[in-house]
Structures are given as C-alpha cells and as structure tokens.
C-alpha cells in the first residue's frame, strides 16, 4: 500500500487555516495515504461558478468553494475524493456545504465527506472520515463485493462492545458478542465464542477483517488481511444484510460513542457523516436511561414500546448532562417509566436527525444497524421522524463484524493463488 500513488482529495473548505486546523487536515490525509489539494481556479471561474450555481452567498471564500467544487464536478480538475468542511456554527457556510455536497453527489461519482470543525478539531477526529474517503476512492473493487465466499471472519472492536462473525459460503455460521473491557481480551473472547458456535478452529478461517476503534490493535493480534474503518464496513454490511445492494440506501448507526449516517449507492458510500456533539445523542444516553429506569439495556426497547411515544414528557438530550436532568425530572414528576423510555428514544432520534441526517441525503430504504437498532422504541422514533418504515436487518447488532466477514472474502482467492 505504501508504494501506491496518494489518493487526491480536493479540499473545499472555508475557515480551516484561520481556525488553526489546516495542518490537522493535511496530516490526517497523509496518514491514510491521501493528499489534500486546492482545485486551481481563476477569478473568471469564480465569477462564472457563482453565477451558474445561483447560491448568492456573501463570503468570498465560499464563492471560491463553489468554483472549486464546480471545477471538480465538471472534470476540469481531477480528484479521487472531496473533503468539504467549514466552521462549526457558521450558517452561511453550512448552507453552502450542504448544497455543494448534494450537487457533487448528484452530478458525479466522486465520494465526498462533509464536516464542520472548530479550533479544537484534531487529526485523530478527521482520520476515520478521511480513511473512509480514501478507501472508497482507492478500493472500489473491494467495495463492490456482494457475495461472501469461503470461510471468513469479521471482528468489530467497538467503543462499548466487541463483536465477531464467521461466515461460510454466504451464510453466517458463528457469532460472538461481549462488552469491550480490555480490547484484546474481549476480541479473543468473541472469536472463541464464534469459533465454538461454528465448530471451527482458527486455522480453518481463510481471511480475517477487523474494524472499529480497536481495529489496528486487534488486526495486528489476529494477523488480519483487512483492517478497515467502520464507515465503509458498516455500510457495506448493512446493504448486504438488508439485501439492498442495488440502488440507493441510507444507513444509520447510532453507536456507543458516535453516530454514523451514510448515504450509499450500489452499496458504495457516496456521502457520509460521523460524529455527535455530545454522548446525549448516542447509545450511551440510552444506556444511562436503562440504568436509571432499573432495566437492562436489552429490555429498554420493549419497555418503550408499551408507550405511545412519550410525546408529552419533556426531554432534551442535546447534552448528556441536561438529558440526565430531564430524565430525573420526568421520573420525579410522576411520568410512567415506559413514557420516559420512549421519550429518551425520541430525544436520541431527534438529535441524530438534527445533527447527522442533515448532512446526507435520505433515500429509502433507511437501514438501521448497530446495537441500538435492537431498541424498538428508537427505531420507531426514527421511523416517525423520517416518515418511513425503517429496515432493521438480521444480525444488525453485528454489523461491523458481518461487513468485515463479507469484505474479507475478497482475500480468499488471492491467498489461494499465492
């Protein structure tokens, strides 16, 4: 991989240099084999693009952003991927960012990631996003896989849980699931569980993929063939399990630490976002809710479904501290436990809707994956918000592991040839 040409990423940003984070962007790109560049445009291009595009913003650097995007989309400048970003809390730039992303997705096949930053944004935050971008650009052949072959394993070392799946001839034959304690110990445990269930030995496994926060460590430990960030792996796994590999699909994964929203076309992510202002908008808040209500997280979904939706319970999980406060207040005011559970689900769905889903195009089917997709109240709340029937595929809580096992099969024949 080291001798490959770097992936050319067109940088379309406003405010990065003045926020002091340009170096973070450049460094993150270089770490994942990418090279940021500014699409070269002349003044006349800016004037023309601004007029053509028709979004009459006032900031000159946003006019420049429009011209740079147009130059890439029209093919005057070659790029493998596009990174659009602007200052967090800038309304003018947020409008441009959104419209440019939409314009790029509709008029080209170039993968794009959009992001809003502040002065504290570091290279590590940008890494996963840019890794996904370079993967989509560079490894399209890997991403087009639709059928699992041979005997492969996927391990997803997530922030709250570790999962493993073993697949054989396009079927899931073994699974393992454990809360993440020590990264390697948890990984070994889930691998053992999955091997036991499938009646196999580790030597029977032909290819291994790892994903999630602990992917590098676990990947090295298991001598994995593929070590891949969770954005591409999860979206691939989602469309595979939901049998939605052709055409458009939207994948939502509300995780323990952050949320992902991916808009995929033929199983390949076109645009995606990842983040969350606060744990209040993630699965972590639902864990807290379950604890407070005295139920196991696995029972929270059933409890919330006893309620009509808990619409009258005041609940705002924009921030996990305020969210917890409203939780305590609601219970103290005498609201029923099921209504509080449903309101918590609604609040998380609302945060994801406001923060993530504005950054991707929602196209049906909408597929929910990850552990939180088993909380029916959350799926119901999201469905109501998007006015659609959400698809939750089988094994959705194993999404990263399933996607990993699928993608790992790209290495089966290669290894045989060797």
């Amino acid at each position, binding site marked *: 991989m080291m001798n490959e040409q770097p992936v050319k990423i067109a940088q379309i940003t406003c405010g990065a240099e003045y926020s002091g984070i340009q170096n973070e962007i450049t460094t993150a790109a270089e770490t994942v084999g990418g090279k940021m560049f*500014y699409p070269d445009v002349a003044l006349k291009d800016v004037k023309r693009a601004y007029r053509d595009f028709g979004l009459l913003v006032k900031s000159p*650097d946003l006019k*420049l952003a429009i011209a740079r995007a147009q130059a890439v989309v029209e093919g005057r400048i070659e790029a493998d991927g596009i990174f659009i970003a602007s200052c967090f809390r800038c309304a003018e730039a947020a409008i441009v960012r959104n419209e440019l992303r939409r314009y790029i997705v509709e008029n080209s096949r170039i993968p794009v990631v959009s992001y809003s930053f502040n002065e504290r944004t570091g290279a590590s935050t940008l890494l996963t996003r840019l890794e996904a971008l370079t993967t989509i650009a560079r490894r399209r052949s890997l991403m087009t896989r639709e059928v699992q072959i041979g005997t492969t394993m996927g391990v997803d070392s997530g922030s709250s849980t570790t999962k493993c799946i073993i697949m054989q001839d396009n079927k899931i034959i073994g699974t393992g699931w454990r809360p993440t304690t020590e990264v390697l110990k948890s990984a070994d445990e889930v691998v053992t569980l999955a091997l036991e269930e499938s009646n196999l030995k580790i030597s029977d496994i032909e290819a291994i993929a790892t994903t999630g926060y602990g992917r590098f460590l676990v990947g090295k430990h298991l001598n994995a063939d593929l070590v891949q960030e969770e954005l591409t792996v999860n979206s691939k796994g989602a469309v595979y399990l939901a049998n939605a590999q052709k055409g458009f699909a939207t994948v939502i994964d509300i995780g323990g630490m952050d949320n992902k929203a991916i808009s995929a076309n033929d199983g390949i992510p076109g645009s995606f976002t990842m983040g969350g202002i606060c744990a209040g908008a993630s699965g972590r808040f639902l864990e807290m809710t379950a604890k407070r209500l005295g139920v196991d997280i696995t029972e929270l979904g059933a409890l919330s479904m006893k309620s009509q939706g808990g619409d009258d319970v005041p609940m705002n999980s924009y921030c996990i501290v305020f969210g917890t406060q409203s939780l305590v207040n609601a219970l103290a005011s005498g609201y029923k436990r099921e209504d509080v559970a449903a309101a918590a689900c609604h609040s998380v769905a609302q945060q994801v809707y406001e923060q993530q889903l504005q950054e991707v195009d929602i196209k049906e089917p909408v597929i929910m994956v990850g552990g939180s997709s088993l909380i029916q109240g959350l799926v119901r709340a999201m469905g109501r918000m998007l006015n659609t029937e959400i698809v939750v595929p089988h094994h959705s809580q194993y999404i990263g592991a399933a996607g990993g096992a699928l993608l790992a099969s790209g290495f089966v024949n290669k290894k045989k040839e060797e």
Partner: protein
Amino acid sequence: MKPYVPQYVGTITKYVFVDSPDITPQDIATAAYEIAQGIMIKETCFGCQITGSPEDVERIINHLQKLDPYRIYVKDRGFPPGDARRCRADLGGARPGYLGHEYEMDLARYITYGLQETDRMTNEKLKITADQKVPRPEMLDIEILESLMKEE
C-alpha cells in the same frame, strides 16, 4: 506537536506589481537585480518580490517606481518568496490571495489614470474632485439585454 523555527526573521517581503504597456514584469525584476546588492529578488508573472531589511527593500522599490511612476503597485507580504506553504506547486492550486490580486489588477488602469490626473491638480481642484460623486450608469437589466441580443 513539532516545534517551528522561523526563517528570515527581521526581514520584510514586498510584492511589486506592474501594469504597463512599456515595462514588463521581467524588466522590473531585471532592474531590481541590478541594484539588489545581495537582497533576495524573485521574479513573478506580475513583477517581483523583494525580501530584505526594511531599508533595503525600500531602496529598491524607490528605484523601481522611477521606471514607471504611475503603474507600479506595491504591497506587503507575510511570507518569504517561494515558501512551500503558499506555493501553487505544493498546494495544487493558487492560494486565495492570488485571485484577489487578479481582481484588483483589473482595476489598476483606473487608479493609474487617477494618479496621473490628480498629480496635475491644484489643492483646490483636488478638494473639489475628492468630494465629487461620479454618477454610475444604471445597469442594464439582464432580461432586456437578452431580448436585445435575440433581436440582433
């Protein structure tokens, strides 16, 4: 984080632009080299950049301005010339400031004309002119323009 050790501390860099039918950017750079005395001169497509002590830079600019007093434009630059952080070759595209130059250089001819005219003015005339407002012709409506073009 990597420590940063600056180069050229204590120097200043100035851009010299020329917009003249008689003097080319290359002429400017050549004239600057002639009296450089070791001062850093970098030829560019619009003139040159000069880096050195404030006194040296001023000495060279004074000389250059005599070549075409109304058509030489000068401004400060934060970076030394050829700095990789701002270089088009390294960034893939022009830094944003370049387009701003393009925009203003397009207006330079009006400024040149204004400089020549005001140099011939008495103090009184200058004062009166300074307070004047030139009426701007109304912009032609784009639809009218389109229909006119179609008629043609």
